[in-house]
């Protein structure tokens, strides 16, 4: 199981800034290990962000997102205390869901 995400959601005026740090190797499938064997691709394919029970971001990603991905989003209509739920699924079917509250 992958390590938990770090999620920070903060109100700046009427806009909520959501920053997410995911812990993932994001292997492209093009790298070779020390023995010269191909390291199989292992990367996050879908990301969703729900705030206050509503789907805000529905994202798909490929191999060219950096290792330990960081994403930043902004939204209107959120308020302090709203629950932020972030979910990702990778190409091996591994998944992780983490929550935070808008501060």
């Amino acid at each position, binding site marked *: 199981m992958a390590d938990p995400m770090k999620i920070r959601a903060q109100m700046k005026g009427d*806009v909520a800034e959501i920053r997410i740090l995911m812990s993932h190797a*994001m292997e*492209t499938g*093009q790298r070779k290990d020390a023995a010269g064997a191909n390291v199989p691709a292992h990367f996050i*394919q*879908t*990301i*969703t*962000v*729900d*705030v206050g029970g*509503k*789907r*805000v*971001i*529905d*994202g*798909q*990603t*490929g*191999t*060219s*997102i*950096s*290792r330990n*991905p*960081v*994403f*930043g*989003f*902004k*939204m*209107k*209509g*959120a308020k302090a205390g709203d629950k932020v739920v972030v*979910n990702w*699924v990778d190409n091996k079917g591994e998944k992780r*869901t983490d929550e935070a509250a808008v501060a």
Partner: protein
Amino acid sequence: MNTTRRTVLKGATASTVLAGLIAAGALRPTQVFASDWNKAAFEAKDTATALKGIGASAPAESKDVVVKVPDIAENGAVVPVDVVSNIPGTTSIAILIDKNPTALSGNFTFANGALPEISARIKMGQTSLVRAVVKAGDKYYVAQKEVKVTVGGCGG
């Protein structure tokens, strides 16, 4: 000690937990799962095919799409990208890197108050144009900027 009673109790607890898990699993797919991964677009080797894959074959150039990337990236493994769309009605932003082995890096759809902007960190194999393709209504718009990737961290 009444071993049968123990076994029955244990069995009961296990099946309750299992039922709980199944219920949770059965409820989840609609809430959690995102739309299916667009394999054709993400495995496309070049920008044109990738654009076709996301349904944006001929996006129009637009100054209202702002791509913020460094001019020179010393480390191609971590290149910060910021995309902001000032086009009203923007529903999605895709990020593409022309010269990467697979061009499409990410495609994000916005809803329920999300502002049409995103920041991410991408990998770049070599100096290339970074494109942001924005969908607003039925139309697609594009803006691009070149990032020079310094291989080996010095010179270039």
